[in-house]
């Protein structure tokens, strides 16, 4: 594991992209295929399955460090990372093993297998697991322990995007970057694949579910007139749902979310599309909640996300459709290099022929001059849309977030001035700082919490708020502090809906801190009535 530790340390120690890529290339050149495959898997968020419950790990780590559980938990709140807390607290030892990264991962997978082999002897299995984990901790030095713990617990942000990893892998393998990002998409797992199968083998037959990398747009940074001639561009609504890729191959349907998650099972209503769309079709679109020829708000769709079982009542309450934006594969042929105009023309034909109420075309917003779009954009909330998308008619379908041919032109957010009421310590890069806040509005003389927000402040402002929180704490509840209601922030959000789950009766879409209103005393913050007005207008 020494090479991987060195890689991790190098990645962690620098903020410079060039250095990160160089470290990765260096590692790929040295590592064996198994370690390479696992590294790719880890950096694309494909960890081995969890083999030990974190509640057990915490207890074992506390006892290994000879501290009571409450002290472990307090330390965890401050460190802000479970794997790190467990690694730091353990008595520090020299590294005394020669296992490789993939061997340690196999060690972790074997812990999981213990359960399957002895399903009835759970007590014994636990005791064995504990012994093995304690043994592992005693073989590893501090950084290795951290990495081992990270492999066993939650998500791991190494500070390397998939894009950077792909770039390094391209340099190492000599395979083109876009080709590689395509090969790395989809449902593969390091447990069942090999480096050769995933990266080297061309056009593998078992990849019928494989999606294409999504093309993502940046927000419009220039004046719209500077885009050029209006007749070279298309405008369509930016629908507020889940971006998805619908694949029909060999009479099977696969639905991928933008987060590269296979969500076919979550949306059984699309299954019938296999009957009306030809094989070798891949459509990029937006899954939105929709009823009686009307788009519904994102909150309706949200009620389906994260549910394990999609029950009949959910299907009735939150029916969905896909709005088709683009066509990536036609008759089994990758057409991403064709112009948008061509792709759209073929898409319209497919959608028309399918004639399904589950698949609609993304209607174009007609305009002659750029200024025609101003009103259309302003009307977005009426359609539960986030704004407009502007696309160059001659553009190809690109990989990842790229500037040039696609721009999103979102409407300005809704805003409300609110009082900071509670603060909680952040995690990861923001560990040990109070960065997670709950905000409230006035209801008479009482403050009613209505939103949580984590983003929008600069590091300097975060430090200032952190210092305020530490000096103005009224009460502590575990990791949460209630603070003197003094600070006012302008909270921006994309949408508002009624909610029975929140004390305030409203739920906001993507709330964040827009501005610190240092000019406003707390008593001048907005009221619950103001929120309700927004709800009546836009909810």
């Amino acid at each position, binding site marked *: 594991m020494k090479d991987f530790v060195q890689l991790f340390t190098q990645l*962690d*120690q*620098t*903020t410079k992209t060039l250095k990160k890529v160089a470290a990765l290339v260096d590692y790929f050149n040295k590592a064996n295929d198994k370690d390479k495959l696992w590294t790719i898997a880890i950096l694309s968020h494909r960890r081995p399955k969890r083999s030990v419950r974190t509640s057990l790990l915490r207890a074992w780590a506390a006892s290994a*460090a000879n*501290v*009571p559980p*409450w*002290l472990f938990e*307090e*330390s965890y709140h*401050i*460190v*802000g*990372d479970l794997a*790190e*807390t467990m690694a*730091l*607290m353990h008595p*520090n030892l020299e590294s005394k093993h020669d296992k490789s990264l993939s061997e340690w991962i196999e060690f972790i997978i074997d812990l999981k297998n213990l359960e399957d082999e002895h399903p009835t002897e759970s007590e014994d299995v636990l005791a064995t697991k504990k012994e093995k984990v304690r043994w592992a901790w005693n073989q590893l030095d501090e950084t290795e322990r951290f990495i081992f713990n990270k492999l066993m617990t939650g998500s791991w942000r190494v*500070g390397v995007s998939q894009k950077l990893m792909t770039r390094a892998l391209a340099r190492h393998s000599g395979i083109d970057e876009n080709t590689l990002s395509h090969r790395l998409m989809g449902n593969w797992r390091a447990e069942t694949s090999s480096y050769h199968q995933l990266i080297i083998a061309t056009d593998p037959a078992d990849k019928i579910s494989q999606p294409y990398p999504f093309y993502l747009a940046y927000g419009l940074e220039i004046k719209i007139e500077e885009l050029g001639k209006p007749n070279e561009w298309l405008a369509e609504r930016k629908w507020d749902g889940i971006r998805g890729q619908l694949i029909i191959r060999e009479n099977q349907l696969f639905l991928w979310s933008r987060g590269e998650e296979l969500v076919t099972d979550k949306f059984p209503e699309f299954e019938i599309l296999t009957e009306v769309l030809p094989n070798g079709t891949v459509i990029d679109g937006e899954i939105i909640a929709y009823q009686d020829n009307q788009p519904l708000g994102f909150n309706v769709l949200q009620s389906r996300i994260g549910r394990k079982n999609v029950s009949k009542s959910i299907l009735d309450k939150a029916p969905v459709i896909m709005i088709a934006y683009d066509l990536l594969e036609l008759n089994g042929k990758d057409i991403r290099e064709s112009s948008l105009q061509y792709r759209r023309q073929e898409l319209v034909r497919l959608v028309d022929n399918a004639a399904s109420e589950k698949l609609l075309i993304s209607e174009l917003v007609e305009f002659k001059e750029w200024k025609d779009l101003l009103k259309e954009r302003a009307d977005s909330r009426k359609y539960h849309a986030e704004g407009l998308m502007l696309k160059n008619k001659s553009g190809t379908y690109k990989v990842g977030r790229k500037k040039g041919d696609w721009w999103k032109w979102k409407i300005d957010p809704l805003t409300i001035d609110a009082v900071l009421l509670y603060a909680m310590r*952040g*995690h*990861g*890069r*923001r*560990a*040990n*700082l109070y960065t997670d806040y709950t905000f409230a509005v006035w209801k008479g003389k009482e403050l009613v919490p209505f939103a949580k927000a984590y983003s929008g402040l600069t*590091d300097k402002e975060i*430090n200032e708020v*952190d*210092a305020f929180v530490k000096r103005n704490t009224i009460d502590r509840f575990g990791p949460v502090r209630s603070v003197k209601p003094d600070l006012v922030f302008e909270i921006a959000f994309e949408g508002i809906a009624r909610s029975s789950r929140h004390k305030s009766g409203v739920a906001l879409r993507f709330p964040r801190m827009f501005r610190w209103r240092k000019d406003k005393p707390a008593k001048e913050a907005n009221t619950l009535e103001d929120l309700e007005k927004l709800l009546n207008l836009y909810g």
Partner: protein
Amino acid sequence: MALLQFTEKGIFCERANVYIDPWKPVDYAIITHAHADHSRWGNKFYLSHHLSKPIIQHRLGSDIHIESMEYLEKRTIHGVSFSFYPAGHIIGSAQVRVEYKGEVWVASGDYKLEDDGFASPFEPIKCNTFITECTFGLPVFQWQNQKEVFDDINKWWKKNQEEDKVTILTGYSLGKAQRLIQGIDPSIGKIFTHGAIEKTNEIIRNMGVKLNQTTYVNSEISKSAYRGALIIAPPSALGTSWQKKFQPFEVGNASGWMKLRGPRRRRSLDRGFVLSDHADWDGLNAAIKATACEKVIVTHGYTNIFSKWLNDQGIETQIEATAFEAEGIENTDKNNAE
């Protein structure tokens, strides 16, 4: 009447009418060390260790009324005897031992147990009541010995030198900076200092204390002279135009907080070195045990957590609020002697 009390002005010995590290102006202040939150402006009289005196005078003005004494020397006021014992925190830092009719209290200021080869090493004192900081009072804080840390720093500097880069290492101006200057291998290359640090160095050298050679960064030195060299700067210099002129450089910070990945990554550093002038978790516990005290008073740091831990261990502990600043993650520069 307790021998020492916590009042709104500071830690007060009523019987002697003396304060230790007061945060509001008083007539008689005994000072543990020369950092700004422990030796404040406005007192009519100061008593410090010999090695703290010139630094305090530099900060507060040469016209203040100040006397100094050696470690273990005694000064008796109204029957209460006061003496300094080494605290190992920075040069001249002291624990204040207070004794009256056989009862002993120790106000330890800030301290660390490891001998850093520069500050006089910490000496435990038997006492009835021990007043302690707990800046790093969590079991996740365990320090490596400083030799290993300096090995890492030396290696880093050499690597940067090979790449023809400037190495900028930050640490606060009084204490950490000198520890770095003294601990790093001076045979690797030339060591430059930021003005705030060189000022402190000058005072320390004038006291006859030996410190490795350093050169003050100034406009008469050509830019190329910094290539391959080391520059020691206070953390406040990061991100300033002062720093930018040294491009291409690598930046490191030496602090106990560098133990945590979050703070390390937050400060867009190339390297974080775990080197603290405060006691780590084991250090705090060992120091308290060595006093064989009946009671502990914790003043700054993770006071709630650390006092609960000590009480659970059967050591009677209470928290007293002071105006001492626990060296925070984001304000490691507060001790800047300027």
